[in-house]
């Protein structure tokens, strides 16, 4: 197994394309976007079934890559989160096929 970094970004759906573009330009080789159902934050509860426009829906963007690529993405993602609602975390993971990340 080989050490890599895992980036997890919970962000509003409308801003997800912006986040994904940042990941792509940072050289990360892939990411996955997952839907979120409901949550609480900023003194407000939210849920997918309370917003007809789906504009306040949240998604989770997961990407795995080398430390330098994740660091490059973090600088821009920090700027993005200056404007949009979201939570970003990074952790260490082990991968089976390192050439893919």
């Amino acid at each position, binding site marked *: 197994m080989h050490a890599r970094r895992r980036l997890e970004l919970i962000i509003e759906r409308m801003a997800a394309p912006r986040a994904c*573009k940042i990941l792509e330009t940072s050289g990360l080789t892939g990411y996955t976007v997952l839907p979120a159902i409901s949550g609480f934050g*900023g003194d407000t509860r939210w849920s997918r079934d*309370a*917003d*007809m426009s789906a504009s306040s829906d949240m998604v989770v963007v997961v990407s795995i890559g080398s430390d330098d690529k994740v660091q490059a993405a973090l600088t821009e993602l920090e700027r993005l989160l*200056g404007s*949009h609602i979201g939570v970003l975390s990074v952790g260490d993971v082990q991968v089976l096929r390192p050439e893919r990340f």
Partner: protein
Amino acid sequence: MDIALATLLSPIVLFFLLGLAAALLKSQMTIPEAFAKGLAIYLMMSIGLKGGVAISEGDLGLDAGLVMVSAVALSFLLPVIAYALLRLTTRLNEVDSAATAAHYGSISIVTFVAAGQAINAAGLQTSGYLVAVAALMEVPAIISALIIAHRGAGQGENVAGSHRGELAREVLLNASVVVLLGSLIIGWISGAAGMKAIEPFFVAPFQGVLCLFLLDMGLSAGRGLRNGWRQLGPGTVAFALYMPLISGLLAAGVAALNGMGPGDAALLITLAASASYIAVPAAMRLALPKARPSVYLTLSLGITFPFNLIVGLPLYIWLARAISPGAS
């Protein structure tokens, strides 16, 4: 009084109230998200087609053109008034006020559909070109609100990852505009003969589908209200109740100046009085991401939409009759 009671006791309003009550009582009832989106597209296709067929039968003249121009001008103006009132009477900051103002200048297509039913039930006729008016009134308010917001420092910043054209695409090519205008054009081209072939799907089941959709709207409004009420002060709640009346009065003036009939006037008043909760929130998340959706969504969907449906519609029909020449 009869119109008010008939509107309140109509199946669409009763199903809305059922959904609202279920959500406020924390019922677990849900309508699958994808199904609800399908219903919304069906309703927009149906009214677009009907409007297009009406236009193909000679519903579009100089008078209609003047109404369209007036309606667009009104949609540009309403956010300016809404913003000024929000800044004067509430504690909302500049960005929240601008984003909320955009919602109140744009329109709610579901309120428009419900109004069409109530107006027809009141024995009044409406013109097909008003579907085009509805589509045209979706966008100008967003532009007005962005101009207002960008006057404030720091609101013109370039958000990381954004790219040219994304906002224009969201605003001009959102589902409401594409489906409404697209169906209107298809109805216009195919005419009454073409409509006959698809009538069993798009006309007969319309009322039932609307009931189902309003049930979902009630659930959404109730849950939005439950989730977001903490963000609202009394002044903000009051705004969501008096702003539709101000918009409605201005639209009544426009209708009177254009000599519109009572049915068309009632629809225009309803359009102006309604607040968007589908197209504008999406645009605001891109253009003004620092604005709080819990404020503008709760106001437009949780307060103004139920207000318009239950109290507003009979009032707007009464107002339209009062200002229209020859109306009884």
